[in-house]
């Protein structure tokens, strides 16, 4: 498994509504995902040459204040190949979301934990594709019971190389 992309809060893009807040936690840039509204952030990259196999997303997070409960995330990929019939001005083409959750957040707020989600729905991503990663906290998921913001430090995308 090889790291192919690392998205940080400073590289995040946002939808027009329901997006996490870019802030600092002890001078560390974080995206604060709300506990009551499902918020989404995007990262854009070009799939590097040699891309192969199963895709995995690893979300590095810490809770702002919660010490109990769980947190759930949905990760979706949009892979656009050259010449695809997609009007990027007006449309998106994200594949079905891949859900994952960490049933138990760290017992101390601020402790970092990593949630790994296998992206079985990877939009047939291939080298040279224009790729967007969508990461959303799924507050409607029954496993998302932790209160307060979930601070995301980074999102890592791996392939099977």
């Amino acid at each position, binding site marked *: 498994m090889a*790291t192919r*992309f690392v*998205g*940080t809060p400073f590289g*995040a893009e946002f939808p027009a509504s329901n997006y996490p*807040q*870019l802030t*600092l936690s002890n001078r560390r840039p974080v995206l604060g995902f709300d506990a009551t509204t499902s918020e989404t952030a995007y990262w854009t990259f070009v799939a*590097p040459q*040699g891309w192969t196999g199963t895709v995995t997303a690893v979300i590095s997070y810490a809770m702002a204040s919660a010490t109990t409960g769980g947190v759930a995330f949905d990760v979706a990929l949009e892979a656009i190949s050259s010449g695809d019939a997609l009007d990027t001005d007006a449309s998106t083409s994200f594949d079905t979301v891949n859900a994952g959750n960490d049933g138990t957040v760290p017992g101390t707020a601020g402790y970092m934990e990593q949630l790994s989600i296998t992206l079985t729905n990877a939009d047939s991503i291939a080298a040279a594709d224009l790729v967007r990663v969508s990461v959303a906290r799924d507050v409607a998921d029954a496993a998302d019971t932790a209160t307060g913001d979930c601070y995301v430090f980074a999102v890592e995308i791996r392939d099977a190389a």
Partner: protein
Amino acid sequence: MAIRFNASGESLSRSRLAGAKTVMAWIYISTDRNDYTAFFGMGSNEIVATTATGTTLLFYDGTIEYTGTNLTAATWYHLAYSSQGDALTDDWAVYLNGVSDISAGARSAISAGTNMYLGNDEYSEWLNGRLAHVKIWNAQLTQAEIQQEMYTIRPQRYANLWCWMPMIETGSSRDNEWSGSGNTWTENGTLSDEDGPPISWGMKPWVVPFVASGGPTTYYSTPAGSIAPAGAASKRTSKTPAGSVTPAGAASKRTSKYPSGSVGLAGALAAARTVLASVGGALAPAGALVRSTAKGLAGSLAPAGALVRSARKTMAGSLAPAGALVRSTAKTLAGALGLAGSLATQLIGGVIEQAVGGTLALAGTLARATSITVSGAITPAGSIARQIGKTLAGALGLAGSVVTNWISPSAAKLDVTLSDAAQTTLTIANAAQTTLTIANAAQTTLTIGDATV
């Protein structure tokens, strides 16, 4: 994040920036006050605000109220003001979402004043709303530059950057100034923090263009120069590098198919399945070469360490490892095979050679089999453990002993044939210390010429 102003007297203030300037921020009217509401109050005659409606954009130059677009509460807008200077002849413009909304080529009054405000002005026309991502230059930016600055918190232009408050921090750090200019602001009233607009910081993400696992695994097809990593080259290097492959560390799987230069490893070539198909130069790792080396090797194969399994199929030069050659070497060897160490098991398919053109001279032991046809001498310093060959044109000079038998270890009996008794002598040099024993006379024949004994 954003700074929330929600009461009279709440603002950020500092001494006024005179002359040319550009001020920009994301603005948000939380509650329509239905009154004059100032976003940027940059002196007595330089105010970007709303009219008394509370939502219609306004620029006040000290005498004239210029009006613009009607804003909607609870909506984020990017607001920028740029000015050529304070003089009557200086032009200015107010941009809403990157588009000029109010502008004029001159002023009706010289811009002046002591202080400047964000979220208020010197007439206490306070904002009930939010400001975020404030950037100020002591220069007049163009519309194109303003549009470039809109969608990133991080400035794109650093020249003349006079103040930058990204406002991504909260609490007492909410108005921290990041440009390094020292042009900080004073908080007036009780400010708070609320959500900001959906704007990216503007840093490019990190994409890994090749797979890395302790070092580069695969380099692509044809590098023009040499490959010389300081560390290990863990999987493969190249298909056709023009130069040498000389990692300081180990090359653990394979190096190249056709390097025209040398493969000189300072470290071991640890687990190579195939080092080379064809090497124009020498293959000389300082350490061990564990499995196999090459198919065709024009130069020598001379590892300082052991050559564990097989070396090559066809080798024009010598095969001379300083250490042991454990399993097989070559099918056809034009040059000499000179081992400093022992030859433990076999060379090729149960025998050393199909044909050895030169000398087979082992400092150590030849453990099992050697050759069918050896045109030169076989002179190991140690012992030959099981069998030598079928036909040996040269001398067989052993410093040690022949352990099992000569001709056929599979034969149940010893057959010794002297084909021409007239020219052949079977000599027992020291009859007193030597016994010729035929263990099973019924199955053994000793023939001299035509006579049977």
